[in-house]
């Protein structure tokens, strides 16, 4: 690389929320004149990184943030960083429909008359025209934004971000701003990005679309679980498959081995037929009591919806689940109907959907059992305490104190409490969504052990996860979901084999979708 300082250089970036570390020693270097991609699945820390760069969150002490070789003060003060040349195009573009192109471009930086501070309309329109010309966009500044089409809107948002940058300077961060675009519209924006970076400005493109990252970026930084899984790799040396592999996890650092012998084939006791929701369709499978069944797919292809459809948390458009306790119509059963059939859900977001953080462990663990165990006029404390203590022991939750509040626990222990809450109820079918997300290695092992113990005691376990290693370590069988073929049994359940199949299953989907069907 040249001796010139990079446009943006961030090093030693760490971020902890409470006891959870969401970013660990992250670095990001964007050179002038390049389009830099940032990839990673949900929860990998992408958005936290952007929020630190723009000053929404303070980083942990010790980080280092340079723009054009100048050190920025931390925590980030947005006006200072913006003046140094960083700007953002947000996901939803942030346009005001009822205002004109010129007004939208100049929001936050209207030229004003010196005396009264009134907006100088002529200078405003000139500024807008100049910015649009620089970007090669032909639009009348007086047009109402409401009348523009999708790519034009994206162009206006980019123009606003470029407004204050000197030609050839600055960095614009596109935070999934292109996700509403496809085909020619997307190409048009890519061409524009190329034009911007041709004179030396830089762009940081956050996208879920691997094809887009391959098409437009010069280099890519990949995050996984808040750590670098690839720092500024040259796009020319990568393939979509390689990016996916790095996003989802590599074969390195395996901490668990798969069950040595496949469990004896048990007759299926739980069957799911014709399940469809907003993003998935044709989901059909069966499993037996004592089996751990994994379901996975490419992040964003809709399989993440399956746990919520199975448990009545979200109404399905069609589908039936049969358990030993009965048959449930998933289009209208609701949570209670599924609970009655013994189907319980351990949701992904323990903070939002899983636990009441302001209440204590005992209350959280006993919540699902209150109706069964208590009488309408009295619920005893003794069994609640006993259940909670049994759970604390069997899952090794620390501190070992049932009256501590959930918010005082570490992420791994919170996740164990969430699991204990539903295990204590004695379910027939345990559905889990990403149960090891953002937990440490020890907690992850304990959780996977607990799943095996639950299965051995006769629970049918359905583990929906994007963690190939977890699936490989814990599951008897793994299904891969893709829109084209629904769920298909994975031939190989090694982590690498799974990632290959996840990628391939969706690769065959993208082709028929591209052609008009």
């Amino acid at each position, binding site marked *: 690389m040249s001796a010139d300082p990079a446009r943006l250089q961030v090093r030693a970036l760490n971020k902890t929320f409470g006891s959870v570390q969401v970013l660990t020693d992250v670095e990001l270097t964007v050179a002038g004149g390049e389009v830099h991609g940032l990839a990673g699945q949900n929860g990998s820390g992408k958005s936290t990184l952007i929020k630190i760069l723009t000053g929404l969150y303070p980083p942990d002490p010790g980080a280092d943030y340079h723009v054009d070789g100048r050190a920025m003060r931390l925590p980030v003060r947005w006006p200072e960083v913006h003046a140094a040349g960083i700007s953002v195009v947000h996901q939803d573009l942030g346009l005001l429909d009822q205002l004109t192109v010129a007004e939208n471009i100049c929001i936050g930086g209207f030229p004003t008359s010196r005396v009264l501070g009134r907006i100088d309309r002529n200078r405003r329109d000139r500024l807008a025209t100049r910015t649009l010309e620089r970007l090669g966009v032909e639009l009348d500044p007086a047009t109402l934004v409401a009348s523009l089409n999708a790519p034009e809107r994206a162009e206006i948002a980019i123009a606003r971000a470029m407004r204050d940058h000197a030609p050839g300077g600055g960095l614009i961060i596109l935070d999934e701003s292109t996700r509403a675009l496809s085909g020619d519209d997307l190409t048009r924006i890519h061409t524009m990005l190329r034009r911007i970076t041709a004179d030396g400005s830089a762009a940081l493109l956050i996208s879920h679309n691997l094809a887009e990252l391959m098409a437009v970026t010069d280099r890519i930084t990949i995050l996984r679980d808040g750590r670098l899984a690839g720092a500024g790799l040259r796009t020319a040396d990568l393939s979509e498959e390689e990016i996916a592999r790095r996003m989802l996890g590599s074969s390195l650092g395996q901490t*668990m*081995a798969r*069950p*040595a*012998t496949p*469990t004896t084939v048990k007759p299926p006791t739980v069957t799911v037929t014709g399940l469809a929701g907003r993003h998935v369709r044709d989901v059909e499978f069966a499993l037996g009591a004592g089996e751990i069944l994994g379901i996975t797919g490419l992040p964003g292809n809709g399989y993440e919806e399956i746990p919520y459809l199975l*448990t009545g*948390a979200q109404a399905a458009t069609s589908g039936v689940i049969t358990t030993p306790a009965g048959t449930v119509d998933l289009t209208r059963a609701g*949570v*209670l109907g599924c*609970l009655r059939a013994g189907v319980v*859900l351990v*949701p992904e977001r323990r903070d*939002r*959907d*899983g*636990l*009441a*953080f*302001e*209440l204590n462990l005992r*209350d959280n663990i*006993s*919540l*699902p059992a*209150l*109706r069964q165990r*208590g009488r*309408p*006029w*009295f*619920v005893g404390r003794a069994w609640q305490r*006993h259940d909670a*203590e*049994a759970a604390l*022991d*069997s899952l*090794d939750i620390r*501190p*070992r*104190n049932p*009256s501590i*509040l959930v*918010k*005082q626990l570490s992420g791994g222990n919170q996740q164990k409490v969430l699991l204990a809450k539903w295990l204590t109820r004695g379910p027939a079918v345990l559905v889990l969504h990403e149960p090891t997300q953002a937990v440490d290695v020890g907690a992850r*092992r*304990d959780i*996977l*052990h607990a799943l*095996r*113990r639950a299965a*051995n005691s006769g629970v049918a376990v359905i583990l929906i996860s994007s963690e190939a290693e977890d699936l490989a*370590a814990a599951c008897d069988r793994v299904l891969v979901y893709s829109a084209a073929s629904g769920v298909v049994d994975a031939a190989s359940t090694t982590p690498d084999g799974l990632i290959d199949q996840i990628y391939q299953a969706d690769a065959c989907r993208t082709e028929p979708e591209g052609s008009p069907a």
Partner: protein
Amino acid sequence: MTLSDQTNKTSARESVVHGIDAPPPDPNSDLPPSAVAVTARPATTTTTGDRLRSIGSRYALIGVWIVMAVVYGAIMPDKFLGTSTAQAIFGSQSALLFLAVAALCTFVVGEFDLSFASVMGLSATIIPVLSTLHHLNLALACLIALLAALGCGLINALFIVKLGVPSLIVTLGTASLFLGLAELISSSTIVSVSNKTFSDIALHNVLGLPLSFYYGLILCAGFAYVLTWMPIGRHIVFVGANREVARLAGINVDRIRAGSYIVASLVAGLAGILLVATVGGFDPTASSSYLLPALAAVFLGTAIVMPGQFNPMGTFLGIYFLETGILGLQLLGYTGWVQDAFYGAGLVVAVTVASLVRNRTRTA
């Protein structure tokens, strides 16, 4: 399970450790057995110091209360010290306490109601108008007042829960609506009831305090019982703590939310009955002056008994804490303005203290 299970808690815990926690090595898994699972740990990590500190933070307000009483007593021993002061404090606030409990009904489920004072005003207006002007049986008048309160609650629940309109807007609007209806009924003249039996229901002296004090105590204790010891109460607490968690546990969240508005209005209606029984009549335009003291007591209650949570016994103590402060100031000669100022400042201080207490638990 073993006999020791029933004999004492520690052995029960040990039997758990050996019975459930350390299963035989899993034949289907070659995962290393979790080493920590078999090591015995101390039975509990709470120490006496922890427990004392927890009691300290739970009942700190009582300490402040005692300090306040001691200071007032030292400044004016003649006026402040005496059973009459205690009677004045504990005998006069029942309607306000009922009103605070009405507010609490919605707060515990994470909802928000500003109309409860007007519901009380409506109820307290209907009774004297019906019984004195229209010569209706007093008991029937009370029943009609309660039905009106029920209707108010249904209206709130309809708009907020069924139609999804923000509760702040709805109850701000219905507060004014119910007040207007009360003024319509009273035709802006204050009617009063004089009925010895009726006022005895509230004022009959038991152990130096009027019956109404005991009603308040029973109401709060009953409410606390429901929240702590009944399944529906535990569900209510979870709806207030995290609505989505409650929904995913199979709780009918909307039914509990709607119920909270309806019960809140009914309790406000009872407050109206109590008010008429104690003072005879009521000017509905004065209802709004009850709003802030009730809110102040509810929020003050979150700093005590169960810090960081809305709780009925906290509200009970909060009411009398605030009244002690005000009575003391009044005896010192500050009148009129002091009530408004004290309740207003009390509300802000209460919320601040409660949030500080909450933050302390977070770092503890």
